[in-house]
């Protein structure tokens, strides 16, 4: 028969709150559902923060209160030290009070007489025993009170925290005495904050929080659990699920399995760096709310104007979901965030995705954390295998990143010797691809800690399957609106990887902010659906790996309500190892330096169907992007800014009119195909066609042509091309037409270019006529009636040519001034068509003289010598005619000229 039995006890106080003169009664539940029982002779400790209900339990045991709900059965006499000065009659002396209290307790005269002297001796208050107690100090009160109480020999002895009032000598005495009482088979209950006292006196301890019993067990375990929960009370929350219990304590999570701590100080926490300074989540001021095992904790870093919000949910199968969100009031450059799980060093074996190994032993000389394994790409899952240790079984622990979040790099580390432990860490880099100068809120980590999972390998491969599609060489990982590409496990994308964005309601929405769901149509096809609920837009990506080395990425949009989407784009970031890019017409090198902003390298939107990147060293395969022109897609190629240090392929979809309203429905937006090829080296060369004569080379490059002498280029930039103006717009041969070479031999090239926006085509014939003599002939074929008001044939030469000559006239080209020359300046123009215009070189450069003359004259042709702008930096020899002409369908002669390149 237990001497004390509490059964679902609830105790409420009705307290009158007076605010500004108005009184209101509120209920305060001091105890909620407390159940426990004690046998005779047990010593129990009760710990908890202030206001958790400890004194209320004592009052219930003392019979001072009746439970509001439940039953409290006490079968024994109770005495103790509950309130300082309780039971004393102030006017009576100490001696008289001894008698009074003994009588009140119910002792008979004889019994009192027996103990009376012992009480006085124990109290040791000297002559004050004969003074009225109203003049006692607190210390004297507690001595006398304790002396009396302990000599009452009650069956149940209660000590509330008042012992702390006595001095050290007295406390030691009391502890000894209480110990004796316990030994003599009496039941003792102690409420204290002194852990040492608790360890000495009580075998069993109860931990209360907010009126509820959190733990009931062995003193050592409960005391350690209590110290986990010590801290600013707003930032503490405790969640327990069968064998797992979790303490959130002001920016750290501590995990207990079967009553033992499996995390090592500080536990589960985050660190991040801003402008070179490191901050830890334990430094913020935290406020946590708990409901049903879900915690929402907000940590404010006041001096950074930044808050970190943790959402933790613990489920019954020991899975702890953990989302970290950052809210900033200003634009903060957060470079890295580390999510750390620090475990006890009893763990010996780690794994990262499918690799595994053993932690080396931490030795005395290990003063810093050491990374044991580091995987270059993103990881899904890092963890430790279960381990039998001296103090019990350590369960398997997984630290997973949710597939719905940007995948960061995972590492396992050994900590230093002073605080040994094993760390599972994710480094996640929050991307701000559109730097925003306004308050922003973004999720920077979403993951889960899973404890005690069986079959680990099975589990990991299941996870990977959900959002990765791959074949032997190619692997595509979808991560919350971003696609990363791996070739032979080498990452082909970096920084922002591949993502989409659209512009509506005056701002850009990127795909990583949508809510994504994934579906696998087959092993090779992944369908991802992203929802922007507040806009009523959903975007569907269909990613299909084809056999071999290509994959397609199709993007469609569905609008649920009328919405105006002004621009849409796809952006793909590639590593800087790609040094060259090429398209149908152009092949250029990327600059090696990165500026503050992105630099557009294809200065005009090229809406042809293919663009590619090449790594000259061959370590990365060539990447070609084929896209559909039908859907109005334009390509741009950028060198990124210095944050990303990447090459950017940018596909833009522009609606024909501005402010296009999308009515509810589905729309196709992008159709792309990426082809990877390790061995394409002849591709670029195939685009050009070359005719050579001795040491002069002409290279035709789809609507433009270059001349080289002795390997050095004489022309510059756009070099040889034609231009036509119709209805106010210029159409150049290298950008507005699609070319095909119809004939080539060693002496001549014939090519036909079909203009995309004009119903006409041009046929070019470039032939080597003689040593250093080239003929260039252009014929025009018109399909439909068209009005063209200006026709030009141009050759742009290198700026190294400094002098020009026409017959007897000559002049110099001015140098390009960096701040002034934004226009092309015509330096000479003449009507006569039979002149020869030539350029002479600057003697330093040893260039040949170049001359251009008309073969077939045309009275309407003007000759012009032009200095270009500072962007092109070229000298142009031009034949142009500005007669307004309506061309009806038919063939026309356009231009026929001779170019001589001769050494001086």
């Amino acid at each position, binding site marked *: 028969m237990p001497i004390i039995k509490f059964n679902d006890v609830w105790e409420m106080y009705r307290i009158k709150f007076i605010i500004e003169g108005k009184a209101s009664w509120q209920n305060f539940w001091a105890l909620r559902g407390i159940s426990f029982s004690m046998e005779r002779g047990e010593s129990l400790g009760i710990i908890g923060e202030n206001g958790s209900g400890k004194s209320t339990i004592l009052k219930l045991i003392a019979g001072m209160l009746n439970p509001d709900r439940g039953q409290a059965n006490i079968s024994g006499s109770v005495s103790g030290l509950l309130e300082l000065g309780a039971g004393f009659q102030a*006017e009576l002396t100490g001696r008289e009070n001894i008698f009074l209290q003994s009588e009140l307790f119910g002792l008979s005269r004889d019994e009192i007489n027996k103990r009376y002297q012992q009480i006085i001796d124990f109290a040791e208050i000297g002559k004050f025993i004969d003074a009225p107690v109203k003049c006692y100090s607190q210390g004297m009160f507690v001595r006398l009170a304790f002396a009396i109480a302990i000599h009452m020999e009650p069956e149940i002895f209660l000590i509330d925290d008042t012992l702390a009032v006595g001095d050290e000598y007295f406390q030691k005495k009391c502890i000894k005495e209480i110990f004796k009482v316990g030994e003599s088979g009496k039941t003792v209950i102690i409420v204290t904050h002194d852990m040492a006292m608790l360890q000495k006196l009580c075998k069993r301890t109860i931990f209360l929080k907010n009126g509820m019993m959190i733990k009931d067990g062995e003193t050592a375990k409960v005391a350690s659990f209590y110290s986990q929960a010590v801290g600013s009370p707003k930032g503490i929350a405790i969640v327990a699920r069968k064998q797992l219990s979790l303490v959130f304590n002001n920016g750290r999570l501590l995990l207990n399995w079967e009553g033992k701590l499996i995390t090592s100080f500080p536990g589960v926490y985050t660190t991040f760096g801003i402008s070179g300074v490191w901050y830890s989540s334990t430094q913020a001021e935290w406020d946590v709310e708990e409901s049903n095992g879900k915690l929402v904790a907000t940590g404010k870093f006041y001096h950074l104007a930044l808050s970190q919000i943790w959402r933790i949910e613990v489920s019954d199968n020991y899975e702890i979901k953990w989302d970290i969100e950052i809210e900033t009031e200003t634009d903060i450059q957060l470079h890295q965030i580390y999510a750390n799980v620090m475990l006890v060093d009893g763990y010996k074996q780690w794994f990262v995705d499918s690799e595994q190994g053993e932690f080396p032993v931490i030795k005395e000389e290990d003063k810093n954390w050491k990374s044991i394994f580091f995987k270059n790409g993103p990881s899904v899952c890092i963890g430790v295998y279960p381990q039998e240790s001296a103090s019990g079984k350590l369960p398997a622990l997984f630290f997973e990143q949710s597939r719905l979040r940007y995948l960061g790099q995972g590492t396992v580390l050994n900590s230093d010797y002073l605080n040994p432990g094993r760390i599972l860490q994710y480094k996640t880099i929050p991307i701000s691809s559109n730097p925003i100068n306004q308050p922003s809120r973004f999720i920077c980590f979403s993951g889960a800690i899973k404890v005690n999972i069986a079959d680990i390998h099975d589990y990991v491969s299941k996870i990977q399957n959900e959002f990765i599609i791959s074949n032997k060489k190619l692997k595509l990982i979808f991560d919350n609106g971003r696609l990363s590409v791996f070739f032979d496990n080498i990452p082909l994308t970096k920084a922002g990887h591949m993502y989409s964005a659209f512009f509506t309601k005056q701002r850009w929405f990127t795909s990583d902010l949508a809510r994504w769901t994934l579906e696998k149509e087959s092993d090779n096809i992944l369908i991802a659906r992203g929802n922007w609920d507040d806009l009523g837009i959903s975007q569907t990506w269909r990613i299909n790996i084809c056999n071999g080395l290509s994959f397609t990425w199709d993007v469609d949009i569905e609008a649920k309500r009328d919405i105006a989407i002004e621009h849409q784009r796809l952006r793909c970031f590639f590593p800087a190892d790609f040094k060259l890019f090429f398209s149908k017409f152009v092949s250029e090198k990327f600059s090696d330096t990165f500026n503050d902003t992105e630099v557009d390298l294809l200065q005009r939107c090229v809406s042809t169907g293919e663009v590619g990147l090449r790594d000259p060293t061959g370590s990365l395969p060539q990447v070609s992007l084929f896209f559909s022109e039908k859907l109005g897609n334009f390509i741009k190629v950028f060198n990124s800014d210095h944050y990303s240090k990447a090459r950017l392929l940018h596909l833009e979809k522009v609606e024909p009119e501005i402010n296009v309203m999308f009515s509810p429905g589905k729309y196709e937006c992008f159709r792309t195909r990426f082809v990877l090829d390790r061995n394409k080296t002849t591709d670029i060369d195939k685009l050009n066609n070359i005719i050579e004569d001795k040491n002069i080379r002409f290279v035709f490059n789809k609507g433009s042509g270059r001349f080289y002498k002795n390997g050095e280029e004489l022309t510059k930039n756009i070099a040889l091309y034609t231009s036509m103006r119709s209805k106010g717009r210029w159409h150049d041969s290298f950008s507005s037409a699609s070319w095909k070479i119809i004939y080539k031999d060693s002496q001549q090239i014939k090519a036909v270019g079909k203009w995309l926006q004009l119903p006409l085509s041009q046929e070019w014939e470039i032939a080597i006529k003689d040593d250093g003599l080239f003929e260039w002939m252009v014929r025009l074929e018109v399909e439909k009636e068209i009005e063209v008001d200006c026709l030009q044939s141009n050759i742009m030469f290198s700026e190294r040519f400094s002098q020009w000559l026409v017959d007897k006239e000559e002049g110099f080209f001015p140098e390009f001034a960096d701040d002034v020359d934004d226009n092309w300046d015509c330096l000479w123009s003449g009507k006569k068509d039979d002149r020869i215009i030539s350029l002479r070189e600057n003697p330093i450069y040893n260039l040949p003289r170049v001359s251009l003359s008309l073969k077939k004259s045309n009275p309407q042709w003007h000759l012009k010598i032009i200095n270009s702008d500072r962007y092109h930096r070229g000298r142009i020899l031009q034949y142009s005619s500005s007669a307004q002409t309506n061309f009806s369908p038919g063939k026309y002669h356009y231009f026929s000229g001779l170019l001589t390149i001769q050494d001086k």
Partner: protein
Amino acid sequence: MPVKLIIKRIQKIYSYRRSLWSMSLKQFKAKYAGSVLGFFWVIINPLLMMLVITFVFTAVFKTGVKDFALFVLSGILPWMFFSGALSEATPSLLVQKSVLHQFSLPKEILPLSSVLSYFMSFLMSWCIVYPVFSFHNPKIIPLTPLLPVIFLLTYFFTCGISLLFSVINILFRDLEHLLGILLMFWFWVTPVFYSIEMIPPEFRWAFNFNPMSPFIICYREIILYGRIPDVGTFLGVIGWAFFSLFIGLSVSVCLESSALKRI
């Protein structure tokens, strides 16, 4: 009907009778500790009261009652016991709450100890006053055995009301402040310094609602006139005594949970 609880409570109180006794003794002693006249105050107080009233009602308002001083004295002693005990018992639970916090006594002990200590004074004052009455009217001597009966009934009645008021005072703190006025009013409607006959017959019925009236009448009959009080009055006294005890214990037991918290 909380009869079972009341019986249990009475048993508990009985088990703590020693505590009750020592508390009452202490309170009794404490009342006169440190004063010069000491326990003579038990009689001086009522005597002084009697002198004032006698003066006022003989010299100022002539009542024409024979032996007015003794007339008043016979009523004033029980009245002062009742009002004194009630005044001390009503706030006793709040004033002495430290005792409740330290010991697991039944809380009724506190108001009951106040009543008991006043009862002790009451009894002591009778020891001094009784010779005076018996000298004045020897006819009262054969009725002396009735005195302990009436004393006990007065004691029960006072206990009941004290228990009731002590609990109500916790819930309505105003009671201890109202008590002064209440008792004053009660005093005026109790025939201490006048007799029932002096009240016009139309109003006489109202005085029957005052529980103290039959008590005072009985006292006067027994100690002053030496007559056995009539049956109705006597039954009234018994009835009121036990009724108030019953009500007092019931309220004390039933409202205990809410009362204890409010202390």
